[in-house]
């Protein structure tokens, strides 16, 4: 019966946060474990992801920790974080001609972009406000909300002067001449990046599958750490193909510049993030508490409710 294929629907973010998943898929590790992967789909918003999880459209997802908290607390979807993929992996890109330091952000002519409320980047924005004691209300009023690829495009088109981006976009931005003046590392030590979440139901009914997923993820992380060059190439390929889905039609010359290069991915994977499956439950608790503090979830809860570390061990 072990040979029997179990079909599994997994959602993956199309950034290198989920590098291990992309590698596993490219190397057909899922199939080798007898898992048939049906959907490997990108969900733009947390709501879409939560809906998909709640509806049963997907069983597992590689997503950032922060939105996973929303999915659990706000959408009431019973999920468990079973494995981490990396720490850090977010930053603030600026146009160096316009923004020299953080306090420049408060200048009225400076336009800032960030992803939507309740995202990891939005939390970092708030952390930044706290750390640099900025006028949060005023700053937030001029923040434009848009998805990461759009932030990069807008920076390039000179429509914004600063923007919070997740990894690989920050690295790509640096190559395009922008400066990452702030990293997750500067704001939140040990900040958990992406994680693998599964529906509780899956743990209850098929713990062995969850075990395999965690195993594959760990194998991916190990591969990145041991063969960064090959890993980068694989991930760059995967994201380029997928990138066409995010930006399905190449419009004009600008989009062409957004091509994902392996050297960017390598820099991103090796320098910007710490690839590890380990999860520090106290950091998770910090993230939960911080979400509650920002009013993004109604009230804090115990990190143990959402984290299930049995499978990592």
């Amino acid at each position: 019966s072990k040979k029997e294929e179990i079909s599994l629907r997994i959602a993956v973010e199309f950034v290198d946060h989920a590098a291990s998943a992309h590698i596993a898929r490219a190397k057909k590790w899922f199939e080798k474990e007898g898992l048939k992967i049906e959907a490997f789909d990108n969900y733009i918003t947390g709501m879409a992801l939560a809906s998909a999880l709640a509806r049963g459209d997907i069983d597992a997802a590689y997503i950032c920790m922060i939105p996973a908290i929303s999915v659990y607390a706000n959408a009431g979807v019973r999920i468990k974080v079973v494995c981490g993929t990396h720490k850090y992996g977010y930053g603030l890109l600026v146009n160096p001609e316009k923004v020299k330091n953080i306090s420049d952000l408060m200048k009225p002519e400076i336009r800032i972009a960030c992803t939507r409320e309740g995202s990891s980047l939005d939390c970092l924005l708030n952390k930044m406000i706290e750390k640099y004691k900025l006028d949060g209300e005023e700053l937030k009023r001029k923040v434009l909300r848009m998805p990461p690829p759009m932030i990069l495009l807008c920076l390039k088109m000179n429509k914004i002067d600063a923007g919070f981006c997740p990894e690989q976009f920050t690295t790509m931005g640096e190559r395009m001449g922008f400066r990452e003046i702030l990293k997750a590392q500067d704001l939140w030590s040990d900040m958990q990046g992406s994680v693998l979440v599964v529906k509780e139901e899956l743990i209850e009914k098929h713990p062995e599958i969850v075990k395999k997923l965690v195993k594959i993820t760990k194998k991916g992380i190990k591969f990145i750490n041991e063969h960064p060059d090959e890993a980068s190439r694989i991930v760059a390929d995967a994201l380029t193909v997928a990138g066409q889905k995010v930006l399905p039609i190449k419009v004009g010359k600008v989009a062409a510049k957004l091509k994902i290069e392996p050297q960017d991915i390598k820099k991103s994977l090796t320098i910007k993030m710490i690839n590890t499956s380990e999860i520090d439950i106290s950091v998770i608790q910090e993230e939960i508490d911080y979400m509650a503090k920002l009013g993004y979830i109604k009230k804090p809860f115990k990190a143990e409710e959402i984290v299930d570390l049995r499978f990592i061990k």
Partner: protein
Amino acid sequence: MKRINFLEFLPVIFLIVIWEIAGRLRFISKELFPPFTEVLSEFFLLIKNGILLENFFRSLIRVLAGFTMGSVLGIFAGILMGWNKYLGKALSPVVSILYPIPALGWLPILMLWIGINELLPIVIIFICSFFPLCYNTVCGIRNVDKDYIHVAQTLGASKIEILKHIVIPLALPNIFTGLRLEAGMAWRVIIAAEMVAIPTGIGALMMRAESLIRMDIIIVCLLVLAVMTFLFERIFIWLENKTIKWRT
């Protein structure tokens, strides 16, 4: 206006009860399909902490500003085009071309031309009210029975007097039809605009709620919207009945 009968509300109450029960049955999670009472309590919470009202007033002000300017200028342009044959001939093809462009379609252009600021939603609402009102006004004015105009002439009225005392008053029903339809439409458009581009207002609140997966807030916003659209249309029906008493 029709008198409202309690019995007419029965089906609505029935609907709410069904909703409440379905929500409590949790066939999806309670959070993704919150029962009516939870939505209600969230509504009061949002009222209490001021978030709903703040965003609501922002949307309201945009709608009011854009709609007032758009409809006033639209009516004005319509009067000019309906009354002056040449102006009408010259401008109506232009209006017929611009009229069918969805107001929201202007958004990307306007984002570039005006940038993202408080003017943007107002201009969009302006566009969404201007063309239909211009169009309706022209129709209303052209439909005024020529007999009235001729008689007024024989009674010694100049063109401008006829316009003032006969043509515009008689075109009012058409103008009000336009106002009524577009008042509802303005709310629909402002929501869409706020969802897409503007970081405040009910539409933005909805988007934020969406990204935080707060279905209860979304439903609160929807209900506020439904009520506002309904109210705005009603206000104009009421105003129409007040103004055009002579129709009865």
